[in-house]
C-alpha cells in the first residue's frame, strides 16, 4: 500500500461530519425540502382486502373532481412484471410485482394512484374511485400457505423467478456440508431450539418520499429518499419502459433507511403520474403506510440443532429457516440465504452442517431488506442454542464461544456454498479480534462476578447474558462502487461518489480516506454523492458495503490522483516522483528539502505547462467480504410479578478493522443495538384475523425512546483488515444481531425460562414463568 498506515492524518480521527452543521442548522437538504412550482400531490388507493381480484375500477367520478389531474390503475397502465428489490442486476428476487395489478394480495396493496392539485383533493378523489372486488380466501400464516390445497397467491402467468408458485414458495435453499446424521451421532451432547421473530418495521423517522419533475430538456428527475439511486433509475426504466438516459435520480440527504429504502416503491408511481400529467408530482407515505405498505423484516421461525463433543467443540449444526416473505418475494431468497451464510461460518469447527429453508408467500405485508438481513433471525436461534449448549456442557458461555469461533487465517465451507442467491466464493478470514472482543466485553460488564451470583431484589430478578455475531462487508463479485476525484487548481479536491449516505456518515469517511492519501485536511475535499447524472456508479447503501467497497474505490482513485500530482511536482522540483512525499498540502523532496504547494502544482497543471486536469476514476468489486465481529453482554432485570423486562446495561465490543471515524462507527453500533433492544422488548406488528394491521402508528408500535434503553456502552477493538481501505471493515449491521439472543439469555440467567418468541413482552414472560421453563 502506498500510504503508510502509521502516519494517518485523517483516518482514525473524529473529524467533523461533512454534512453535520448544515443538518444541525436545518438547511433544506431532504427530498421534500425543495418546492417545485406547480407540483401535484400523489396519493395511493390501497386494498381493504387481504386477497381479492379486482373485477372493475370506475375512476370517472374521481377524474371529474376539480383539481384532479389523473388517476392510474390496472385499467390504464401497462402490465410489466418487475421486482421492487433494489439489488444488482439481474436481481435474485422474483419478478412477481406489477405497478397496478388486477389482483390485490394484502391489506394495503396498491390499487390506484391519484395526482391532484392539493393533498385534500387527492384524498377526496381516492374516496370517489369505485372498485369492485371478488374477495378470495386469504392465507394469513406460513402454515396456511404451505397447507395442501392452500389458495395460490401468485397464480398470474407472467411472473418470473418464483421457486414454486403453486405451493406459495417464493424461494428455497438446501445446503448440506459433510454428513449431518453422522455428525449428530458422533456428538456427545445435542440441543435444539426454535426461535421466532414477528413482523417488525424499520421506522426511519423520515417516511419514504419523492419528487418527480422535468428538467429544462424534459428529462425526468426523481429526487428521492433512497438507499439505491442507481437501482432506482434502472428499475423505474424497466417498470415504465423508459430509456435510462431520460431519467436522472438524485439522492439528497435521507432521513434513515435501515433497508426499507432499498426498495423501489414510490418512485415508479410518482414517475408514472408525472409522465401521464406532464407535471411535477410529490409523494410521501404517511406513517401508517410506512408500516403497512413499505417493507418489514421477514418474520421467521428458525430451528437450530447443535451437536458438540464433551470438551465443547461443535461437531454438527443444523439450521432450518421458515421465512414469511408476505405478498411479494422481494429479497426472499437472499434474506433466507443470509440466515445461514452470515451465521454458520462463525462456528467453523463443526465439519457437519445442514442449512435448509423456505421463504413462503402469505397475504400479509411485504417483507424486504432490513439491517441484519436474515443474520438477525439466524443469530437469535443460534446464540440461544449456544447458551443452552453451554448450560448442558457445564461450560461458561464465553468459553464456549472462545473455543469455537473462527480465527484469522481460517475459512468455512459456507463462504463458498452460499452467495447472493447463488454459490458464493471461497474466502479466508484475514482479520478477527473476536477473542479480544469477548474478553474486553466480559471484563467490562463484570461477567464472572455477575454470572456466579444472580441478584434478587424483591420481585426483581437480575441476570446477565451474552451473544456474538458477525456480518460481511459487501457482496463478493456482485457489488461495485466507483469514485472520481478531481483536483482544483488551488490544491483542493472534488470527490464524486455514487455511494449513498443515508445518515451513516459515508460522505465523511470517504472524504477521510481521500484526504489521507492526498495529504490534505478533510475540509479541502468537497464531496458530492449519489446523483446518477453526475457521480459514478455505486450499488448503494446496503449489505454493509460502503466503507469497504466504495472506500476501496475512493482509495484507488485517490492513489491515482496522487500519482498524477506527484508527476507534475516532479517536473517542478526536478526530481523523480518516487523520491517525493505528499503531506500537509505540499509536495516535498526529503533530499533537497525543497517543496511546492498543491496549489502551485494545480495552477501549473491547469494553466502553465503540459496542461491537463488532474483527475482519476476507479471502480472496486470485492473479491472477499471480510466479516466484522461483535460480542454483546447485557444485564437485565425481570419483574417476576408483572413480567416486565428492563435492560439495565448493554455492553458491545466490536471489531470493524480500523475505524475510519471512531465516533461514527460507535454511533452505528449504538443505533443498531437500540433497534435490536426494540425488537427484543416491544416491536411487533399485529394483525386482525382478516389481515388488517392493528398498530400501524408510532404510539402503538413502540420503538425505544430515550427512557426505554440504557446508555449503551460500546468499545471498538481494532484489528487491521489487509484488504480493507486503510484497514477498515464494515460496522452498520453487525450490532443488530446481538440484543435478541443476549437479552433472551440474560432472562434465562435471571429467572430460568427461555424466551424464544420475540418480543419478550410482559405477557410472554409471565406466561413462560408460569409454565416454568419455556415458551414455544
Amino acid at each position, binding site marked *: 500500500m502506498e500510504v503508510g498506515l502509521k502516519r494517518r492524518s485523517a483516518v482514525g480521527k473524529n473529524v467533523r461530519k461533512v*454534512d453535520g452543521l448544515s*443538518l*444541525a442548522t*436545518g438547511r433544506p437538504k431532504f427530498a421534500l425540502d425543495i418546492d417545485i412550482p406547480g407540483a401535484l400531490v400523489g396519493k395511493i388507493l390501497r386494498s381493504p382486502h387481504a386477497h381479492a381480484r379486482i373485477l372493475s375500477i370506475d375512476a370517472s367520478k374521481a377524474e371529474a373532481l376539480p383539481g384532479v389531474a389523473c388517476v392510474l390503475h390496472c385499467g390504464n397502465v401497462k402490465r410489466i412484471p418487475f421486482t421492487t428489490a433494489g439489488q444488482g442486476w439481474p436481481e435474485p428476487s422474483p419478478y412477481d410485482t406489477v405497478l397496478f395489478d388486477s389482483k390485490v394480495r394484502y391489506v394495503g396493496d396498491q390499487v390506484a394512484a391519484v395526482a391532484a392539485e392539493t393533498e385534500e383533493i387527492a384524498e377526496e378523489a381516492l374516496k370517489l374511485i369505485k372498485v369492485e372486488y371478488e374477495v378470495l380466501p386469504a392465507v394469513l400464516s406460513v402454515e396456511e400457505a404451505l397447507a395442501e390445497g392452500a389458495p395460490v397467491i401468485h397464480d398470474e402467468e407472467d411472473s418470473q423467478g418464483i421457486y414454486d408458485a403453486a405451493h406459495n414458495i417464493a424461494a428455497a435453499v438446501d445446503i448440506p456440508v459433510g454428513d449431518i446424521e453422522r455428525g449428530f451421532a458422533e456428538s456427545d451432547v445435542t440441543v435444539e431450539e426454535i426461535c421466532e421473530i414477528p413482523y417488525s418495521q424499520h421506522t426511519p423517522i423520515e417516511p419514504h418520499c419523492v419528487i418527480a419533475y422535468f428538467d429544462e430538456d424534459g428529462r425526468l428527475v426523481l429526487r428521492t429518499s433512497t438507499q439505491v439511486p442507481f437501482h432506482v433509475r434502472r428499475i423505474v426504466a424497466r417498470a415504465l419502459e423508459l430509456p435510462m438516459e431520460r431519467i436522472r435520480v438524485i439522492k439528497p440527504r435521507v432521513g434513515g433507511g435501515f433497508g426499507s429504502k432499498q426498495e423501489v416503491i414510490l418512485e415508479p408511481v410518482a414517475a408514472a403520474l408525472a409522465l401521464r400529467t406532464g407535471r411535477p408530482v410529490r409523494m410521501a407515505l404517511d406513517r401508517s403506510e410506512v408500516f403497512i405498505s413499505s417493507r418489514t423484516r421477514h418474520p421467521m421461525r428458525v430451528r437450530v440443532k447443535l451437536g458438540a463433543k464433551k470438551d465443547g467443540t461443535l461437531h454438527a449444526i443444523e439450521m432450518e429457516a421458515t421465512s414469511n416473505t408476505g405478498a411479494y418475494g422481494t429479497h426472499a431468497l437472499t434474506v433466507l440465504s443470509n440466515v445461514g451464510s452470515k451465521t454458520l461460518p462463525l462456528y467453523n469447527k463443526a465439519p457437519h452442517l445442514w442449512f435448509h429453508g423456505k421463504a413462503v408467500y402469505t397475504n400479509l405485508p411485504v417483507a424486504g431488506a432490513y439491517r441484519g438481513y436474515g443474520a438477525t433471525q439466524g443469530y437469535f436461534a443460534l446464540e440461544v442454542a449456544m447458551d443452552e449448549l453451554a448450560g448442558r456442557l457445564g461450560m461458561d458461555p464465553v468459553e464456549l464461544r472462545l473455543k469455537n469461533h473462527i480465527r484469522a487465517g481460517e475459512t468455512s465451507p459456507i463462504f463458498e456454498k452460499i452467495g447472493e442467491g447463488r454459490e458464493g466464493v471461497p474466502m479466508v478470514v484475514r482479520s478477527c479480534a473476536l477473542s479480544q472482543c469477548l474478553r474486553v466485553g466480559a471484563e467490562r460488564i463484570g461477567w464472572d462476578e455477575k454470572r456466579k451470583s444472580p441478584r434478587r431484589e424483591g420481585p426483581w430478578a437480575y441476570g446477565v447474558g451474552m451473544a456474538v455475531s458477525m456480518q460481511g462487508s459487501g457482496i463478493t463479485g456482485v457489488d461495485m462502487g466507483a469514485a472520481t476525484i478531481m483536483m482544483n487548481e488551488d490544491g483542493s479536491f472534488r470527490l464524486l461518489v455514487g455511494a449513498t449516505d443515508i445518515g451513516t456518515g459515508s460522505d465523511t469517511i470517504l472524504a477521510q480516506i481521500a484526504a489521507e492519501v492526498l495529504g490534505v485536511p478533510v475540509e479541502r475535499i468537497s464531496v458530492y454523492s449519489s446523483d446518477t447524472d453526475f457521480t459514478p456508479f455505486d450499488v448503494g447503501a446496503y449489505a454493509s458495503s460502503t466503507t469497504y467497497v466504495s472506500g476501496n474505490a475512493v482509495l484507488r482513485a485517490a492513489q491515482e490522483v496522487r500519482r498524477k500530482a506527484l508527476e507534475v511536482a516532479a517536473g517542478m522540483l526536478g526530481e523523480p516522483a518516487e523520491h517525493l512525499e505528499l503531506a500537509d498540502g505540499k509536495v516535498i523532496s526529503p533530499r533537497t528539502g525543497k517543496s511546492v504547494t498543491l496549489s502551485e502544482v494545480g495552477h501549473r497543471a491547469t494553466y502553465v505547462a503540459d496542461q491537463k486536469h488532474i483527475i482519476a476514476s476507479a471502480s472496486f468489486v470485492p473479491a472477499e467480504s471480510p466479516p466484522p465481529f461483535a460480542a454483546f453482554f447485557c444485564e437485565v432485570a425481570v419483574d417476576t410479578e408483572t413480567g416486565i423486562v428492563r435492560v439495565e446495561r448493554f455492553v458491545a465490543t466490536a471489531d470493524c478493522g480500523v475505524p475510519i471515524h471512531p465516533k461514527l462507527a460507535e*454511533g452505528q453500533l449504538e443505533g443498531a443495538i*437500540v433497534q435490536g433492544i426494540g425488537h427484543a422488548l416491544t416491536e411487533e406488528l399485529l394483525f386482525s384475523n382478516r389481515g388488517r394491521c392493528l398498530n400501524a402508528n408510532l404510539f402503538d408500535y413502540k420503538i425505544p425512546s*430515550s427512557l426505554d*434503553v440504557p446508555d449503551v456502552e460500546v468499545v471498538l477493538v481494532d484489528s487491521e483488515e489487509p484488504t480493507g481501505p486503510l484497514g477498515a471493515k464494515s460496522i452498520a449491521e453487525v450490532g443488530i444481531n446481538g440484543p435478541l439472543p443476549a437479552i433472551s439469555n440474560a432472562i434465562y440467567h435471571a429467572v430460568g425460562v427461555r424466551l424464544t418468541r420475540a418480543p419478550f413482552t410482559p405477557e410472554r414472560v409471565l406466561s413462560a414463568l408460569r409454565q416454568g421453563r419455556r415458551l414455544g
Partner: protein
Amino acid sequence: MKIYLELNGKQRYEEVAPGESLLSLLRRLGMKSVKQGCATGDCGACTVLLDGRAVRACTVFAPQVRGRRVTTLEGLGDVDDPHPLQEAFVEAGAVQCGFCTPGMIMVAYELLSRNDNPTPEEVREAISGNLCRCTGYVKIVDAILLAAKWKREGKWR
C-alpha cells in the same frame, strides 16, 4: 383568514386555513427544518417553540398561533453563525441522518433555558417524546450535556 405571528424574531402577517396545522404553515413559509415524521404527535420531529415552550407543530392549528411567538431551528442559528447547541450536536456525533435533529435541538433548548445543569436522566426525560431511530440516543444525550457545560461556562451568546 390572516393572522399576525412573530416567526424567528420577525413580524409576519400570513394567510392560514382554519384546519391547517402549524407544521404545514411553517413548512409553507420556508421553515424546512420542521419535519414531518408522523403527523400524529408521536415522533417529535416537528417540535418548535411556541412562546418559548416546546410544542409539536403537527398538533397545533395554525390559527392558534395568532399573536404568538414561534421559534424554529432556523431561528437559533445558521451555518455561518451556529448556535452552541447546533455546534454541540455536531461535535458530539449526535447527528446521523439528521431528521430528528431539529426537534431534538428545540426540546434541548427549552430544557437548558430552565436548567443549565441537567443530569443525564433529566436530559433523557426531556427528549423522551422525540424519537430517533439512528443514534440510540447516547450521543444526543452527550451533545446536550456538552451544550449545557458550554452554557455554564458562559460560552453561549
